């Protein structure tokens, strides 16, 4: 039996990598991909708890499916915005899109 701690550690590492990417990468597509990475980190946690957690049951796996579908929708919307943005501003560099300021 593998300890749940390992799964949680994997989730945390994945999450941090994703977060790092979101916060540092300038390319919007990579930022989006990193968001996916973070979601998957959550998924790992959910699945782990669902199979070997102290109150193991199926709810975690159901939630995982939810997350995956939401992630799919998010990617669709995200890419759509990205394309619209590119058409308007000729760039998908995060730093250049700073209209949301004082």
């Amino acid at each position, binding site marked *: 039996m593998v300890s749940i701690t390992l799964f949680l550690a994997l989730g945390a590492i994945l999450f941090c990598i994703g977060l790092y990417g*979101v*916060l540092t990468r300038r390319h919007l597509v990579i930022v989006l991909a990193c968001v996916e990475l973070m979601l998957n980190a959550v998924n790992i946690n959910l699945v782990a708890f669902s199979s070997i957690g102290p109150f193991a049951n199926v709810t975690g796996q159901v939630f995982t499916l939810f997350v995956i579908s939401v992630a799919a929708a998010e990617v669709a919307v995200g890419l759509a915005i990205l394309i619209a943005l590119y058409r308007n501003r000729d760039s998908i560099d995060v730093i250049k*899109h*700073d209209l*949301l*300021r004082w």
Partner: protein
Amino acid sequence: MIQNAWLIPVFPLIAFIILLFFGRALKEKASYVGITALALSFILAVLVLFERIGGETYTYVVKWIGFGESTITMGYEVTALNAMMLIVVTVVSLLVHIFSREYMREDDRIHVFYSYLGLFSFSMLGLVLAPNVLQLFIFWELVGLCSYLLVGFWYFKPEAAAAAKKAFLTTRIGDVGLLIGLVLLFNAVGSFEYSAVYSAVEAGLVGDTMVTIIAICIFLGAVGKSAQFPLHVWLPDAMEGPTPVSALIHAATMVAAGVYLVGVMYPVFLASSTAMTVVAYTGAITAIFAATIALVNTDIKRILAYSTISQLGYMMLALGTGGYVAGLFHLMTHAFFKALLFLGAGSVIFALHHRQDIRKMGGLWKRMKVTSVTFLIGALAIAGIFPLAGFWSKEGILAAAWEGGDMFLFIIAVVTAFMTAFYMFRLFFKAFTGEFRGDHEPHENTKLMTIPLTVLAILAVAAGFVNTPFSLGLETFLTDGLHVGHQAHGELWLAVLSIAVALAGIGLAWAMYGKGAIREDFLSQKVPGVHKLLLNKYYLDELYQKVFVSPTVAIGKFFWEVDRLFIDGIVNFVGRATRGSGRAFAKRHDGQLQTYGLVTIIGGLVVIAVAFVLRGYIG
């Protein structure tokens, strides 16, 4: 008639109101309105006096204000003292009204002048008729206002404007003391009524210390109004007003109100020997202090003003040593002969086209006969020559000072009497004898001016006879029902001493300024320091300026800076800090989503960390 005594002040008030509204249309006819009103007042005052001598008395009051269970009333009352004062005020006021008709003839604001005179007469008569000391205070302030308006009548002269302010402000200092005294009195007695105050004080209902404090506070008011040292500085400056005003307000009536106040509050003073001593010494110091300044001054009106201060001090001295009748008697005689002297001075000034320097006069005796003779009578009266009015009253004061038992006060009284005779005759010899030294040849004035002078001269001769050692008419009248001891006259040697001192003063003045046997600049040659000190009025004005006025303004300026820079600075700082910090934080919103995310995450971590620490999971 005595029930209608309230009409006495009302006539001048009506004159004031008429002139206020229709003055411009009336122009110089305004004087008739004022003169008529005062004549009516005078007639009524005479009738009231006769009835009062007949033994009648009358008091009428209405509720003025109530708070809690207390009630303050206002009304009027005729007593012996105020019946006498009514006559003094109406006579002098009437004569001044008549005199001013000529004196102010060429002033295009003559109607304003007469309206102010009416307001003053109303206030002064109201002051006298008051049945309680609060009402007295109310009118006391009103006469102060009139004094302010009349001193500043020629408002376009900067000196007059400054003098008016100084007069009001200086007396105001005393008035605040008076107000505090009255409030303390009210809290101790529960009433402002004279009768209630008298009986409470005589029954010893007010503690010893409290009575002393009250008496001294009340006396402060008198010090301001009657120009006693150290608050006398306003009166000489008040001579910037028209001369008839100086005669009426600043010689005969208003300035005597302080003496009158001490008179009506006499039981309170009698209850405290400390207060009596304060009154006596203040009076004595003032008397001699002002007399010394009058010795060297060269402005005819200012000499008379210092003389007034000195004589008022004399009255205070009398009251303080127990000479109740003597003080008030002198108040009456002084009103007549000082009004005479001022109007005489006015006549001279008018004839000389508003020159007031006695060095530029001389030889007026031949040129202005009536003025000179009446002025001489006034000067003899104030010097205390038998049998003029001043003799009787001054002798009474010397008697009071002698019987008071304080040798120091007595000597001061005698020395002052000498100085009075000297400076008055210095003035007389300089102005009326010798050669004319001015540039406009003067002529005697019209009857409108000389008749008031003549009437006052007669009074200055005759007024003393109401209270001679042979018939104590005034004394019996005034002390009826009051518990004040003392006869108003002493032994014969006092009378002789008084005349001898006066003659010595006159003789010295004649030797210096009449005959020229002693050089005029004797004092300035021998003791230049003293001469300079006297000429500069002991530098009191400069001292007050340095010690009180400038520091107050400086403190004000300091607090203004504190207010702007510090207190308002804090307010503005709060405002600016809010806006500034807002602006600073706004700069951080640079639109970089990734920065926002980073800050959010750090914030979240901090919150979690704090929560953990607080709950004790970590550390």
